[in-house]
């Protein structure tokens, strides 16, 4: 039943000397990536910029402490308060968590409907979803901004506008993720046999009980994968956050971008910026390290029409 595909995936595809060649090639290809990331991460813990392996440096937490104190420049002048820095991290979490919640709620229910119900335009709209997924978010910005501007000016009182902009950026960013999430989750729902749901109905439950107690527990891996993708999308997003959040509301992405773009790069102390960058990358790195197998299963098992 569920998860049978997992065992098939665990066996090595290539064995013997061929596997060494394969690992060598993969290492070579990913070397630039590994170098860039390790340069960033090591620099954030170093007393100087570690741009090549021959740089001598001392290990220190000073950059991280300085970052949280808001001391970004070489002169250690306090540009932001700790509160502002925490606020900015908090904003990032709010956007990421919000996107996750909206994507999960939207895609789990629609994927269930796509998997379980028959209705007009079911096949057609499924294909349309795929098309929507291929549509770049940037290309939609003008239209989305128009909606944002008119609703904001017409219906939102000035004191609620910050709240509305958060609400809007979460909704807009989530809607970019929902089409693919529906496809992923539909594949998982398709693997849950009908009889399990009927069983709950026979046992005295409602359709909703069946969804919660028999179906959801079995599609947990899919839900987890979709949640991770959505969280990362919200956490990393730059363009939507930059356009829709008011200038005084930063996330990690817009904060770093702001530092690099405003010409303060010359005055910024780069090891401190490396700490900010590492923090920004942290969820991505952690998720991909700890959920490799889950993601592999999602991509191989979840994507079925």
């Amino acid at each position, binding site marked *: 039943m569920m998860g049978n595909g997992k065992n098939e995936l665990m066996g090595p595809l290539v064995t013997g000397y061929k596997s060494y060649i394969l690992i060598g090639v993969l290492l070579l290809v990913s070397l630039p990536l590994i170098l860039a990331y390790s340069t960033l991460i090591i620099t954030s813990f170093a007393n100087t910029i570690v741009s090549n392996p021959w740089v001598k440096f001392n290990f220190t937490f000073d950059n991280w402490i300085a970052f949280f104190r808001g001391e970004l420049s070489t002169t250690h002048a306090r540009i932001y308060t700790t509160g502002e820095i925490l606020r900015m991290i908090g904003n990032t979490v709010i956007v990421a968590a919000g996107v996750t919640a909206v994507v999960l709620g939207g895609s789990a229910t629609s994927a269930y409907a796509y998997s379980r119900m028959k209705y007009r335009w079911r096949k057609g709209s499924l294909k349309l979803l795929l098309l929507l997924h291929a549509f770049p978010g940037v290309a939609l910005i003008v239209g989305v901004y128009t909606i944002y501007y008119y609703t904001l000016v017409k219906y939102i009182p000035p004191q609620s506008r910050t709240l509305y902009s958060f609400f809007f950026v979460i909704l807009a960013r989530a809607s970019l993720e929902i089409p693919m999430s529906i496809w992923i989750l539909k594949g998982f729902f398709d693997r849950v*046999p009908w*009889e*399990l749901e*009927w*069983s709950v109905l*026979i*046992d*005295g*439950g409602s359709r909703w009980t069946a969804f919660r107690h028999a179906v959801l*527990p079995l599609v947990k891996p899919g839900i987890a994968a979709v949640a991770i993708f959505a969280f990362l999308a919200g956490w990393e997003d730059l363009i939507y956050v930059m356009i829709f959040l008011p200038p005084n509301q930063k996330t990690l992405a817009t904060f770093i971008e702001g530092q690099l773009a405003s010409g303060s790069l010359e005055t910024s102390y780069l090891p401190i910026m490396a700490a900010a960058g590492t923090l920004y990358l942290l969820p991505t790195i952690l998720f991909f390290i700890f959920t490799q197998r889950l993601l592999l299963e999602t991509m191989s098992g979840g994507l079925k029409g």
Partner: protein
Amino acid sequence: MVSVQLVKVTKRFGSVVAVNNVDLEIPDGRFTALLGPSGSGKTTLLYLIAGIYRPTRGKILFDGKDVTNLKPNERNIGLVFQNYALYPHMKVYDNISFPLRLAKKPKSFIDKKVREIAAMLQIDHLLDRYPAQLSGGQQQRVALARALVKEPSVLLLDEPLSNLDAMLRLKIRSELKRLQKDLGITAIYVTHDQSEALAMADKVVVINNGVIQQEGDPHEVYRNPRNVFVASFIGSPPANIFPVKVDLVEEPCVILPGGKYCPKGILAERLKNLGKETVLFGFRPEDATLHEVPRHDGIIMEGEVYTIEPLGREVIVTLKVDGNLVKVIAPPTTTGRISQRVYINVPRDKAMLFDPDTEKNLRLIG
């Protein structure tokens, strides 16, 4: 316990008619088998009774009460699915207790009930395991326990033995029959295995193409098949049926290879009134005997030995009779060689004649 009644029930899936205008009475407290080949509509019929499907037309009554529009959870039924449909993320205990938990029964009551039913089905040592850690037979018992724990008024079983190996199937078959008798519960059992249906059921309902072919007690259905389908579906091996010429010149007779059969009484009259050139002649393999010289009582046919299959308790001899393969169950001591000429003897009252067009048994028309 309740009786179940279907009144002119039809179920369509798109243009496919799965169940066609079925009238059926399922007696209270008895074991009823719905028997038919795959695609005959028997499982659809079961799901209609369960409330998983809504009938396109017709009514379903429980003890005279109309339940046609009730949801499964409002019908108080237990159902054992063919694949058991155990909740894979729940332990056996939680699987069995699930219906009671949904009904919001007190914890102590649930615990008592679960242990009681588990002890009855001898799975009390498995309560801490997950379904994936159980054998097929054990999973089947858990599914049965889950269906029975809420004391349903009807127990529905959808081919519950088909996923088990042959030995276990025989064992559980008799256990299940005994369990039903002990509980006195109304049970409806779907199967494609005619021996299972005959062995377990008080009432057998034979279904094909969404239409009930015959219903009755196992003996009745076996001895007096209403039509060619029932005769050739029930029995192992099933009844031998082949076309023969009719001769109405002196008296109504059918011409057999090496002999002829002239029925008496009502059967003769019906054969004559039918007025057709050929009819279908049939008999059950165990009703015939084989002889090296023709006997002069009963119906005699000539055939030649095609194969001989000794099964220990009996020998199945396949014979070629006028181009048709015919099976006869012979005593275990039977010997013979291939292509040997033999005479098949069938007692007159065991012979069956069917209308070649309607395929109805001439003996039972009227």
